[in-house]
């Protein structure tokens, strides 16, 4: 290993890359303990119905079947859910979407498991079902849950929107629709679990929230959270889809019935589509107005998010949608109302851009339309209205922290891709049309008020003289583990050979929340800074004892040693390491993210997670070329300018921007969970299309470095913001090229072509 200091601000290659590129890294999926059983769920296959009978006699009698479990075998509440506990581990009386599990089979191998699942006969009396959130709100709609179909309704009002419209010179009214998007992490939901002789459940699972998982399982199965140990290795992708229980409760239930044998559950791709969480489909009614001088003046919008059969984080996703509904702009009068509604569709949940992706489509298109009506340059119009520190955002919250949309837009305006766009557009080939589109977006960081966004970090000085960081937040691929090592290396002044990182394990690490919400490196990083500073002070103090120095001042922690600068004498870390007793080896740091102090009234709508005070910002530019014969859109160039405070690792930063943009391009051009009566018509990668290497251009990422003084070394989370801009930027580019106004995504060739044909 190269003896290079791990420091903040350098493009340090990922510390996990080597083990991943050689195949040595063990993901949850790579664990096959001896003597394991395979678990699998029988899915309802009916969108809404009453379970009359589950006949599993034939399955149970099949040689190699270890157990068949149903609702009556579930101890505890049988209910899971992060905020609202409305989702059964195993459905007993009702099924609310086709992917609801009704029975759990444990078998000796996968072949027997598949056969046993096919032998289970489930008799379900179908009930009237509803698949559209607005339909589901009608008084005569079928009731999906006892308390009705409304998961959450809230209203944000600022100023007097209705009156303000009469003061506007231009007004735009438009309706937008964005579909359900699948995360498509390549490692599907999986884990292995077993029960130890003392009753403890141990689980190695692909999860974003190991510490919360214990409580989910405990609540659902009537266990003690302390009797559950969750280990979360590096994830093969997650993007929000592994935040919340996927296999966890089923697997723990299986372990309870496996007589100490390990059980493995691994959802196949089609099952991941059917039962996994998805980005919420949304319908958005927008009305926005600006004054003749080019200032935004009024916004009214009505947002309907389809939660599917259960809540998961639907209310919180809608909340972020509403909070971002006005874009990164000053708007004096807003009236934002939202509904998150149960339907019999698959379950909506967290996904990168968490509710913001959808409204960004709507708002940024509205900005283009207003600019056109006003005869203003779309970039200048945005700049004129862009939020700055000290402004109130569209919910009325005062922005007291770093607010960098202006530098993003200014950097974009200076960039050659912006200044050269007209020239590029003119050089389209035959039957091709070219256009450029712009989007300015933002994304909140952290859990928001009402749910403390906290982390506890521990660093240990091992007897071998190494520093071991106990990470409490999983690395789902976003690179936080490397950022943690850089933060520790920076403070402790050590190279990679003296630093190691333990992936989250609820028995060894300390609670640090979930890997989500753009808060992973911010919150854990701040806690880690404290732990490392304490460790550094400790080692300087202990070195002072060794050297019998009169005072602790003048000591520096250096690679492999502590030096007394006044005398030049060194104490080797290896020596100190052998000296320290066990009780003196660890330092712990903890932090809680600051929250907003001015909280707008939203009625009784938001219980937790509102409002936010930290946001990252981005301005994107897309060059598209449209084939007039097929309608196919090709993204030819892409520029992403991002503001996320200081950058801890420029390579990791770019990786996050590239990945977010690629997912956004997919959402713009091809991705949609196609649903018919709650059934997914494209539950595989042959029919659900993802961007390949041929669909994503060479994305140019520019970082506008500001500083967020509360963040670790000035950083903010930027993992999500980049996913919000591609849909509106590409739609804008298409309108620029061919004058077609796209209000429903994805913008498939067929859709574009039919709109082209309708255009006179």
């Amino acid at each position: 290993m190269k003896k290079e200091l791990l420091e903040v601000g350098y493009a340090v290659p990922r510390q996990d890359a080597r083990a991943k590129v050689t195949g040595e890294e063990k993901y949850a999926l790579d664990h096959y303990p001896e003597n394991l059983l395979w678990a699998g769920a029988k899915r309802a296959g009916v969108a809404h119905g009453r379970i009359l009978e589950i006949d599993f006699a034939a399955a149970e009698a099949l040689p190699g079947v270890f157990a068949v479990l149903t609702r009556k075998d579930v101890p505890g509440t049988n209910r899971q859910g992060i905020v609202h506990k409305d989702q059964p581990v195993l459905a007993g009386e009702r099924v609310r979407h086709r992917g609801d599990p009704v029975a759990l089979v444990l078998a000796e191998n996968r072949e027997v498991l598949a056969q046993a699942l096919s032998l289970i006969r489930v008799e379900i009396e179908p009930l009237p079902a509803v698949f559209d959130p607005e339909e589901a709100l009608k008084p005569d709609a079928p009731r999906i849950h006892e308390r009705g179909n409304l998961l959450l309704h809230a209203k944000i009002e600022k100023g007097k929107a209705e009156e303000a419209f009469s003061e506007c010179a231009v007004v735009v009214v438009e309706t937008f629709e964005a579909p359900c998007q699948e995360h498509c992490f390549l490692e599907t939901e999986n884990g292995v679990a077993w029960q130890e002789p003392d009753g403890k459940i141990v689980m190695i699972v692909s999860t974003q929230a190991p510490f919360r998982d214990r409580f989910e399982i405990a609540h659902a199965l009537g266990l003690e959270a302390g009797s559950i140990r969750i280990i979360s290795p590096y994830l093969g992708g997650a993007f929000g889809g592994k935040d919340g229980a996927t296999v966890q409760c089923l697997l723990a239930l299986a372990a309870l019935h496996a007589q100490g044998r390990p059980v493995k559950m691994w959802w196949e791709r089609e099952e991941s589509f059917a039962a996994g969480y998805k980005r919420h489909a949304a319908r958005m009614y927008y009305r926005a107005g600006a004054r003749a001088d080019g200032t935004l003046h009024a916004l009214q919008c009505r947002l309907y998010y389809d939660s599917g059969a259960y809540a998961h984080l639907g209310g919180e996703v809608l909340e972020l949608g509403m909070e971002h509904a006005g874009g990164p702009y000053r708007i004096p009068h807003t009236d934002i109302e939202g509904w998150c509604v149960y339907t019999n569709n698959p379950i909506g949940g967290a996904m990168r851009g968490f509710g913001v992706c959808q409204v960004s489509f709507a708002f940024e298109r509205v900005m283009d339309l207003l600019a056109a009506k006003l005869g203003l340059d779309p970039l200048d119009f945005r700049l004129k209205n862009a939020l700055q520190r000290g402004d109130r955002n569209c919910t009325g919250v005062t922005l007291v922290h770093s607010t960098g949309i202006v530098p993003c837009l200014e950097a974009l305006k200076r960039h050659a891709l912006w200044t050269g766009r007209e020239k590029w557009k003119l050089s389209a080939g035959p039957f091709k049309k070219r256009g450029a589109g712009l989007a300015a977006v933002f994304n909140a960081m952290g859990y928001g008020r009402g749910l403390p966004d906290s982390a506890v970090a521990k660093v240990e000085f091992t007897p071998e003289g190494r520093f071991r960081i106990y990470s409490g937040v999983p690395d789902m691929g976003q690179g936080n583990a490397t950022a943690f090592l850089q933060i520790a290396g920076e403070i402790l002044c050590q190279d990679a050979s003296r630093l190691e990182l333990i992936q989250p394990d609820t028995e060894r690490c300390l609670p640090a929340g979930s890997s989500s919400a753009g808060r992973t490196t911010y919150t854990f990083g701040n806690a880690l800074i404290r732990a490392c500073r304490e460790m550094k002070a400790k080692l300087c103090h202990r070195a002072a004892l060794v050297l019998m120095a009169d005072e602790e001042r003048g000591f520096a922690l250096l690679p492999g040693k502590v030096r007394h600068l006044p005398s030049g004498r060194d104490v080797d870390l290896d020596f100190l390491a052998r000296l320290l007793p066990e009780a003196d080896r660890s330092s712990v740091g903890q932090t809680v993210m600051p929250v907003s102090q001015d909280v707008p009234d939203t009625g009784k709508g938001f219980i937790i997670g509102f409002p936010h005070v930290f946001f990252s910002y981005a301005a994107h530019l897309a060059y598209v070329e449209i084939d007039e014969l097929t309608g196919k859109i090709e993204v030819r160039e892409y520029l992403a300018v991002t503001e996320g405070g200081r950058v801890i690792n420029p390579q990791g930063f770019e990786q996050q921007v590239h990945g977010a943009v690629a997912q956004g391009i997919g959402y713009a051009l091809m991705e949609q969970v196609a649903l018919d009566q709650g059934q997914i018509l494209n539950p595989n990668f042959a029919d659900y299309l993802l961007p390949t290497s041929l669909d994503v251009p060479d994305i140019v990422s520019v970082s506008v470095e500001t500083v967020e003084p509360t963040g670790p070394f000035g950083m903010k989370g930027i993992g999500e913001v980049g996913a919000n801009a591609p849909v509106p930027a590409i739609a804008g580019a298409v309108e620029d090229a061919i004058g077609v106004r796209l209000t429903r995504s994805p913008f498939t060739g067929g859709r574009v072509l039919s709109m082209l044909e309708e255009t006179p």
Partner: protein
Amino acid sequence: MVRFVLNGKDMQIDAPPDRRVVDLLREDLGLTGTKEGCGAGECGACTVLVDGETRLSCLMLAVQLEGRQVTTIEGLQRETGAGLHPVQEAFVEYGAVQCGFCTPGMALSAVRIIRRNPDPTRAEIREGLSGNLCRCTGYVKIVEAVEAAAWKMSNKPPEKPAKDAAP
């Protein structure tokens, strides 16, 4: 009984002929570097090299390995003697790895691209990688890494023993 060469080692394995190769590798032989993302030949995560060609191990049965040379990600280092293969090195250095789940298959596809065409254009690299899905990277850094590896391999070819040299 299936006989084949796996990462340079002669294998005789008593596997049912309809055992999927991905299961044979991962479960029976513990070579979990080969991943499975879809089980239907659509994502490329399970890519291995069979007689130097990229093959999807989720669509191959054990019996199809009879007499073949198989290289998995675990065997790639062997090909260069010691240390990482230049493709692996470039993946690390150029930031082509995020979650890493597509990486083994992607790296093997990259090796085949360069073997077939030591000086590929970016468009050819993109074409050659288009059967391997990656959900994390947007492919930009993967393409850069393959380009860099190709360059490195053509400028500094690994030293060959004299007997392998062309007459």
